[in-house]
């Protein structure tokens, strides 16, 4: 325990001494991007939380965002489906595009955008409704299912793909909040995939879960990555290493380094990335 604490203290000290680069190290661009962020700045009031980030999110791939607390991972993630719109003092500059269209353009409606770019949150947040209604909510409001049978199918296949069907198929009308934490989070994933999104954003989806539930979610992410583009914020580097193909390291609002997960973890190019990774791994 003590050595770990010392490591973190040392690491923080190292981080403070290192220089944040002006340019991101590594390949910010990819061949088949699903979403592209160009020179994105985010402010909370006067405070700059994201500083000039340029990054491509590759199609049907898992990218993880890592970095110390408060470095802006969640902020940047929430820019990708405009969840930051709900925060009054939050202001965004730059461009984030999907299919070549800036999602912050004045004529863009956030409702269909959020159906295409779904989100799973840190704390499992099922609606205080039945398991069925939780999953059916998205398809219902977007009018995705044309009849009851189709809706039933969507609910079943979403729960199946979220690896929850076998556990809940006999209790679909029971409250979603009565499930265990891990099941709740899988229910939230089912709810997200029920509207057939293209991108799924996950903000530390396992931080409230025990190791076994975490392992299940990680498996699930691996399975889902064949169908969906996934962006995951995680504070666990092991998790980033296990689930993602690409890793982006943020520090104080800047994107310091991005590259293939293996490269970032084995041969980080920037000193700060190196410090962070080695600090944690001990």
């Amino acid at each position, binding site marked *: 325990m003590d050595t770990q604490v010392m490591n973190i203290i040392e690491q923080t000290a190292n981080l403070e001494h290192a220089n944040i680069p002006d340019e991101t190290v590594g390949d910010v661009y990819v061949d088949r991007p699903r979403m592209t962020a160009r020179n994105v700045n985010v402010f909370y009031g006067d405070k700059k939380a994201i500083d000039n980030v340029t990054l491509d999110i590759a199609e049907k791939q898992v990218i993880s965002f890592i970095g110390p607390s408060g470095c802006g991972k969640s902020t940047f993630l929430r820019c990708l489906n405009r969840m930051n719109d*709900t925060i009054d003092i939050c202001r965004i500059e730059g461009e984030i595009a999907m299919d070549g269209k800036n999602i912050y353009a004045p004529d863009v409606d*956030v*409702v269909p955008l959020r159906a295409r770019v779904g*989100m799973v*949150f840190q*704390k499992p*947040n099922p609606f205080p409704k039945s398991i069925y209604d939780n999953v059916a*909510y998205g398809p219902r*409001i977007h009018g995705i299912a044309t009849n009851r049978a189709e809706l039933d199918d969507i609910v079943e296949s979403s729960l199946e793909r979220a690896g929850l069907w076998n556990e809940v198929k006999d209790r679909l009308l029971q409250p979603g909040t009565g499930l265990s934490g891990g099941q709740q989070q899988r229910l939230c994933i089912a709810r997200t995939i029920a509207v057939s999104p293209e991108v799924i954003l996950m903000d530390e989806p396992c931080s409230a879960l025990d190791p076994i539930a975490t392992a299940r979610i990680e498996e699930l992410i691996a399975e889902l990555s064949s169908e969906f583009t996934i962006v995951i914020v995680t504070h666990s580097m092991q998790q980033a290493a296990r689930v993602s193909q690409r890793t982006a390291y943020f520090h104080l609002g800047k994107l310091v380094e991005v590259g293939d997960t293996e490269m970032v973890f084995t041969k980080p190019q920037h000193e700060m990335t190196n410090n962070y990774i080695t600090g944690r791994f001990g």
Partner: protein
Amino acid sequence: MTDPRRDMISPAVAAERVATGLAARRNREKRFQLYGRIAIGIALAFLVTLFVSIFSKGIPGFFQHYVTLEVTLDREKLDPTGDFSVQSLYDGDARGVIRAALYEATGASGRSGRKAAGKLISQGAEQRLRKAVLADPSILDTTQTMTFAVDDDVDSFLRGFIKRETPEKDRRINDKAIGYIDTLVEKGLISFKFSDYLVFGSASRNAEMAGIFGALIGSILTLAVCLVLSFPIGVATAVYLEEFAPKNRITEIIEININNLAAVPSVVFGILGLAIFIGVFGMPRSIPLIGGVVLALMTLPTIIISSRAAIRAVPPSIRDAALGVGASRVQTMLHHVVPLAMPGMLTGTIIGMAQALGETAPLLMIGMVAFIVDVPGSVTDPGTVLPVQIFMWADFAERMFILKTSAAIMVLLAFLIVMNAAAIFIRKKLERRW
């Protein structure tokens, strides 16, 4: 870095110091609990006193004395025109028919005797007789056993409030009348029954005929108007202010004003109602519609404030969840936030409605204190409400009004309890805390 163990107190010393303070700490805790119990005890004592005094006076108020008479329903006397119209019945001598029965029962004779006997019975008796005849004309020209309320002074005498020993000139009923009452009691013609006048009667100057039905209906109509206006407006305002309003100077001023409105004395709302609805719009006085609007103005701040608190108490994660699957802001509100906040909103509404139910001052301002005999049939018919009726009765000196005032207070309390119970029931139904 400094050595963290430098100034540490040894565990033994620490434990010892903790033990020294322990007794004092326990005492303080006990003392605090004692204060709490005393406070609850005082509050309970007040409550018990209140209830005992209201119930002890109020329950007798639900009963009054009746006299049973053999009435000969002479058609010629009751229906002089013979066309059996209401007008004809009113022209008829119902009073004479009843009095005749009364003289028969008491054996009253002579001018002064008949005068004394005639006063024994309530003025409402004639009306009751006419109603009975209208309802069933076949009873005409027969002799019927009918029950009428006795006059309130007789009732007071029978209850023992007017004493036989009091010198005749100081009594409200004379010796002759007492003699007749004794006769009626001996014959077993006097009964003490549940007062149908109290429950089904309206305002009356005669204490034995006075009832709360009109005021009860007035209260229901007024509160219905109040609820229909203040609940949707209050909830909509709260939702808008909490979720949609831009945070700027104007909304800030609106917020401050709403909070201040909650503290405005209720009579001010009455003046407002008088000036605007009656003065500017020229609407009639004394009607439940305006009463309801005025009370709605008064309850709005309460509902808005509690609804906003309820909305704020909905966890933000639920909002995120809904927005995250692409619900619009309005959908997020209507599907998730408002249903979850509804129990809290209802709590505020119950409090507001309870205040409105007990409110007198603003209704006096808009004339709902008028003496209205008819039961209001709609929100635009003149009427009064329970607390105002109680307020008016409390002003009368007659013993029976005092009893009926307490009875009316009990009805008001019962109304309040029924209303709250209904609201709590609805709230529990909605409050599926999963």
